[in-house]
């Protein structure tokens, strides 16, 4: 420990103003100035992007839409609601893993987990007020700028809004109780954990209600042929896109929360002065990245499910999404999500430096990189490559004969499955990095030995359930002719093959051949979910495309069965294995921390961009097919406008949350002093 740090420590203990106080003061001024600059730039951005809108629009009645001091109402709503959504994602997403960390600490009796969970809580508690404030600002601006729409919309959702308000009050009470009663309930941890679980449940309720409003605007329910609302608030709430959007948002919130706290930990790591702090924040960053990747792994499938449901609501909306106006946004999304996977893996590989024995696995990393980067390259290949006239002539068309196939959905589904499996392999390498001298499987206790058969039964249940469901599926239910049942049977057959693979893998593990079992089932998953069903997807696209939804589900279930079974085998294999050495937390290169910060920035941009897509799919409709936006701002903003707006919102969010975290740490500093 350096002398200067010691002096600070003494000053802190004596509650004397430390040398850091002045720095913190300057930091506060800098943070305030930065925030003000960002807000001002956001204001100017809105003004510039969405037009010089000083003149009144003769076609728009003042009681329909109003401007915001001359600024575009749509731009103002865009900025406010997006900032609200980003903060809300953080407040709702972080409690999920905070409670999990607290439970682990409680059950293990390990105070470090408790400290970590408490630090997470301090962060989301600090952002709760601004989330609520932005929510209120959003409501006021919506009523002020879009009075006609607001009256109609809130007239429909009236009773739901009362529930929303009540749940929000409960959320406020539970959140602050959970935060403030941390010390008081140390001896009654069960009660405190139950408060945390309540917080998660209430937060999920808020996600449901908030999402129901945006999903209603895309897929209105309770509407008659004339477009009049004849249903109840419950009908509006349970609109067709509610569940797909909620599933996608919950996973997205988890990913978002993980990566944001990861970036917070990275900044704290880089500015740490003691080994203890470095170790703590290194661990915190690892947890953030772990949570982020755990949420990210099922997200592509949740997105696919949402996309199929959007097609179900309206083929036109679906076409605009994947082949039309927003198709280029999805190419940018592929790039961003690809970067999330690459950087998440990169952080894991960089972290292997702190694990004794990890050098044994370094040689595999280059193969992972080739697969991962190759898959990302395929994923972001558009169907219509931008071509110069000379290239068009040389190719003889607008679709490249060789690369065009990479732009189709079946290819995308295949490569994302491979990306997920590769990321999973990285985790396996990380887990076993410091393990040696495995205990023979037969020498394990009953609990460990039964883990693998139990996982096998779970996989068999999942795969068997879906296979039998496919066999019982009537082609007429998908508007297909009877001979198309072949496609159902073929896919079900592959699921049965996977089930045979599960049984074999469990048998091999029980006979002490766990590594072989892992390799065998991993191969089965890659061959079936990536290669066979990837190619089969092209055939289904041309011959029985309504079945694509079931095909993708089969791919995903095979993938999930691989994650479950191989994880269970790994847990059993390495149980009580000799450790080459403990993880040297804090011993990690600084560049890996910049990867954590980049992950945070990228997830914010991704969420901002996908919100633009979801909202933009309605084109010039407030409520799709029911209430049209007749104002002059009812155009679809271009990709260029989107990138500037989302970029500005990302900077504003980062500045605001940095300021809030800084404030939270002032409180944390005081807590430590006390």
């Amino acid at each position, binding site marked *: 420990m350096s002398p200067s740090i010691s002096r600070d420590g003494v000053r802190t203990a004596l509650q004397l103003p430390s040398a850091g106080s002045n720095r913190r003061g300057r930091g506060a001024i800098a943070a305030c100035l930065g925030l003000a600059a960002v807000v001002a730039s956001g204001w100017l951005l809105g003004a510039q992007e969405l037009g010089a809108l000083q003149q009144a629009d003769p076609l728009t009645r003042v009681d329909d839409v109003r401007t915001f001091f001359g600024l575009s109402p749509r731009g103002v709503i865009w900025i406010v609601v997006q900032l609200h959504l980003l903060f809300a994602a953080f407040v709702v997403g972080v409690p999920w893993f905070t409670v999990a960390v607290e439970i682990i600490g409680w059950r293990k009796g390990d105070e470090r987990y408790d400290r970590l969970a408490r630090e997470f809580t301090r962060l989301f508690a600090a952002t709760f007020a601004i989330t609520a404030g932005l929510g209120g600002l959003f409501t006021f601006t919506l009523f002020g700028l879009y009075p006609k729409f607001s009256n109609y919309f809130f007239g429909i959702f009236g009773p739901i809004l009362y529930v929303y308000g009540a749940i929000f009050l409960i959320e406020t009470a539970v959140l602050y109780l959970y935060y403030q009663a941390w010390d008081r309930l140390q001896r009654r941890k069960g009660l405190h954990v139950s408060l945390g679980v309540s917080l998660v449940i209430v937060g999920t309720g808020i996600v449901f209600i908030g999402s129901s409003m945006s999903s209603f605007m895309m897929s209105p329910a309770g509407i008659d042929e004339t477009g009049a609302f004849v249903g109840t608030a419950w009908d509006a709430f349970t609109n067709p896109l509610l569940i797909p959007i909620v599933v996608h948002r919950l996973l997205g919130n988890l990913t978002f929360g993980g990566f944001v706290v990861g970036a917070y930990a990275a900044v704290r790591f880089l500015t740490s002065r003691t080994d203890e702090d470095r170790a703590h924040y290194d661990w915190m960053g690892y947890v953030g990245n772990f949570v982020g990747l755990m949420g990210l792994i099922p997200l592509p499938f949740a997105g696919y499910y949402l996309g199929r449901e959007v097609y179900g609501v309206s083929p036109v909306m679906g076409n605009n999404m994947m082949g039309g106006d927003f*198709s280029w946004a999805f190419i940018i999304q592929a790039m961003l999500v690809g970067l999330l996977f690459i950087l998440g893996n990169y952080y894991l590989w960089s972290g292997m430096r702190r694990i004794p024995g990890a050098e044994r696995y370094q040689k595999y990393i280059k193969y992972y990189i080739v697969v991962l980067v190759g898959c990302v390259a395929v994923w972001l290949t558009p169907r219509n490559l931008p071509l110069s006239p000379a290239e068009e002539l040389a190719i003889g068309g607008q679709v*490249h004969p060789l690369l065009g196939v990479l732009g189709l959905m079946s290819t995308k589904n295949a490569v994302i499955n491979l990306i997920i499996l590769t990321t999973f392999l990285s985790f396996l390498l990380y887990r076993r990095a410091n393990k040696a001298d495995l205990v023979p499987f037969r020498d394990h206790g009953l609990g460990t030995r039964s883990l693998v058969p139990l996982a096998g039964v779970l996989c068999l249940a999942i795969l068997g359930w879906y296979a039998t469901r496919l066999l019982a599926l009537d082609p007429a239910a998908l508007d297909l002719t009877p001979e198309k049942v072949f496609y159902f049977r073929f896919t079900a057959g592959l699921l049965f093959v996977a089930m045979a693979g599960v049984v074999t893998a469990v048998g091999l593990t029980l006979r002490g051949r766990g590594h072989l079992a892992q390799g065998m089932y991993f191969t089965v998953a890659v061959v079936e979910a990536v290669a066979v069903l990837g190619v089969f997807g092209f055939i289904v696209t041309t011959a029985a*495309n309504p079945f694509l939804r079931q095909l993708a589900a089969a791919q995903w279930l095979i993938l999930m069965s691989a994650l479950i079974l191989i994880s269970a085998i790994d847990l059993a294999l390495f149980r009580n294995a000799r450790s080459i050495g403990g993880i040297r937390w804090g011993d990690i290169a600084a560049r890996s921390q910049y990867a954590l910060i980049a992950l945070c920035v990228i997830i914010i941009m991704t969420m901002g961009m996908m919100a633009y897509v979801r909202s933009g799919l309605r084109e010039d409709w407030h409520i799709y097919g029911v209430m049209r936006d007749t104002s002059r701002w009812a155009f679809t903003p271009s990709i260029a406008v989107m990138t500037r707006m989302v970029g500005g919102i990302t900077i504003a969010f980062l500045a605001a949350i940095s300021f809030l975290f800084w404030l939270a740490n002032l409180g944390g500093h005081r807590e430590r002093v006390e």
Partner: protein
Amino acid sequence: MDGPRAVGDPGRAAPPSAGSEPRVFLWTLVTLLAFYLALRFGLPRAGVWMGVSEVPAPIPVFALWIYMLCATVGALVWASSDDRRWRLFLGAPVRLLVGGPHVDRRVRTGVLVAVPLLAGWAVWQRVMPSTDVPTVVRLQHPTQPEEYAPLENPVRALSDDAREAAEREGLVLYQTNCRPCHGTTGGGDGPLARGLRLQPIDFADAGTIASVIESYPFWRIRTGHAALPDIATPWNSAMPSWETELSDDEIWRIILAEYALSGTEPRVPERLDR
């Protein structure tokens, strides 16, 4: 997810990995160059070998850029995921720029001259006035006009016999009106196709008529290239408007025939999972 148990010295270097080479930077450059050459010259020939094109189709500049960008990211990730390798990787360019015991002065001077010249050349290429038609970012399936979206093919509602008769009639109409460009089987290889600047699409390709609902080709046939928005590059299409030549009913029959000819099915509006 073990908690922090041990704290190490952050300045401590990791043990050198077994596969590290002193010429990491050079080999990375060589690998990237080899990858570029494979993309530029190998892949088009692979396309011919695989039978997807008759002549080598060049890889567009945009694709080269994104693939080389991915390869560079991969190379940087590989180089920086190990401390020793990263130091070796950075060592070569740093020595070239600031000098070192084993760096020839002429080589260093050459690098210091070449880097700004290359940067200047790149800037010049970017801002130089050009008469070339710019590269176009194109949409595959632009937004279908609202009035077309809800339309359904009335011929599909007919009895089996009537539908088969309609399909036969559609085939005759297709061969008469569409075959010259779109080809006998809808492969985009009709006798007039070679006379067009860009070849018509292949209907059997999974990304064309199979990926849209039937009202989409109805709109496209009826209104032709003139109704396409700019984002779909109407100037790249020779598709005429058929609304003055064919009745709506005839167009629907032709659509039925096109799907039958290409062995594909139109996209069916999906049912919601509720």
